[in-house]
């Protein structure tokens, strides 16, 4: 496959005796949205953590553009073009939205620490560029009016957008979204799906999306992996997944009973 970006092979993570992820295999191609679905504790976030470098897998390998990135440090993986958001929003305290977004973009500015001290025109020029570029990403998620507000004082739904803007600011090829719909109400989820779709098209991103909410996943993804208790029990298009008896038994069945 020519345009395959991300490939994971037999990804396994054990925490002590607990096997959080067992032999997960999957791929992500350019300009594709794939999803991983599964109930809480199915190992979805663990997969994202391994891909983004928070911790290495116990066994298995991760390839990005055919390069083995399994043991790379998180910032290296980010530099290659993989950015992410978090299920439990992880914004920085005492930072404005603008500053938060700057964190992910500003490391690119090619000025040295010594120059910083003298605040040379070069430094000022780069810092202006960083600011403009960061505003551009903030604008992309429709938060322009909040750019100067403290990021953590915003409503939950908007904080999600700040996280997305921060992830975009590292100009990724692959975006990993960890339960972007968590804690949002129906309207907010609708806006979010809209936003993700728009970013996907405008920035020609490839997105790996995790959620336990069917509506988010079904609306966005063209291919879905179903995780249950660390194992990948099924994969396919949304239609295939919705009609797969194993999935219905393991996951949807529960939901229908609850509803």
């Amino acid at each position, binding site marked *: 496959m020519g345009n395959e970006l991300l490939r994971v092979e037999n990804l396994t993570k054990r925490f002590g005796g607990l096997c959080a992820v067992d032999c997960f295999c999957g791929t992500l191609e350019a300009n594709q949205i794939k999803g991983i679905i599964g109930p809480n504790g199915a190992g979805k976030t663990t997969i994202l953590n391994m891909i*983004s*470098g*928070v911790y290495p897998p116990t066994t298995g390998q991760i390839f990005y553009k055919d390069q083995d990135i399994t043991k790379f*440090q*998180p*910032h290296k993986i*980010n*530099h290659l073009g993989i*950015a*992410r958001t*978090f299920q439990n929003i*992880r914004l*920085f*305290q*005492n*930072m404005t939205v603008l*500053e938060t977004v*700057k*964190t*992910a973009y*500003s*490391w690119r*500015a090619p*000025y040295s*620490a010594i120059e*910083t*001290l003298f*605040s040379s025109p070069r*430094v000022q020029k780069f*810092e202006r560029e*960083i600011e403009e570029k960061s505003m551009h990403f903030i604008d992309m998620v429709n938060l322009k009016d909040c750019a100067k507000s403290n990021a953590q004082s915003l409503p939950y739904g908007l904080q999600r957008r700040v996280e997305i803007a*921060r*992830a975009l*600011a*590292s100009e990724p090829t692959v975006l990993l979204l960890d339960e972007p719909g968590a804690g949002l109400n129906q309207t907010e989820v609708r806006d979010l799906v809209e936003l993700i779709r728009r970013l996907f098209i405008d920035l020609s991103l490839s997105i790996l999306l995790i959620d336990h909410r069917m509506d988010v996943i079904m609306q966005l993804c063209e291919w879905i992996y179903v995780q249950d208790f660390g194992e990948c029990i099924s994969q396919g298009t949304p239609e295939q997944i919705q009609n797969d008896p194993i999935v219905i038994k393991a996951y949807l069945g529960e939901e229908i009973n609850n509803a």
Partner: protein
Amino acid sequence: MDLIEIFQQVINGLSRGAIYALIAVGFAIIVNVLKFSNFAHGGVLGISAYAGYLASSQFNLSFIPVVLIGMVTGAIVAVLVEFIAFRWIRMQKGQLVYFFVTSVTMLMLLEQILVIRFGSFFDTYPYDLIKVKFINIGELSISVTYLISLAVTIVAFGLLIYVFKKTKIGIAIRAASNDMTTTSLMGINTGMVIIAAFVVSGMMGGISGVLFGISTSLSPQIGQVVVKGFIASVLGGLGSLTGVAVAAVALGLIEVFLVSTIGSGYSPVVIFALMIAFLLLRPQGFAGVSFTDKA
């Protein structure tokens, strides 16, 4: 005390407090990033104070170059301390208490290096480093040394605020202070951020060492003034640099007034008693964010 005397003490207190603020902020930067109390900062301060002393007594340099030499020395020593003492513990993901114990050990080690080189006597900066000693305004006579210390501190703080608010390095240090993992996931090399934090902290430590050396006297134990930085960091709330600076100035003022009323013997007793009381009442400090784990 009459009014003149009070005014005089306020100036003394402010200048002392300003130096404490520099010490405390240098100390607090490392607390924020690595979450442990870095007493080796005292050693950095001590070595820089003597570096400034050598520059002025041996090479007859004037005030501003001496301060700059102190600043550069501070940065270099701080990075060396990180490299020699803390890096390995970081790589092993060691517990905070190991960092803490190592930092106290480094303080003692650096002190001993000073004892070997300079003996355990008191030295003073050359008398004519600051030519005019006092400005007299009516009955008031104000120490120029104190005024200059105050001015240098203000400049240093201006620089610090600029770096933290406006540059990529400052933003990265602030982000790493908050959440190291997320920071590195955003593409920031946290190893470099930690070195940058030690550079900035060391620069502050270097300047404060020279200023403290000039306004008092030098002994190899000069680094122990880092305790004042520690007190101010705790009082100010370890998460907030502004809170720390305010607490340090307050500490300077209180100390000067205590020394002039109850004497220098009892003054530390009162200050530590106040600190204990404060910790019981408001452990997160004036402006504090509370840390769950600190050593």
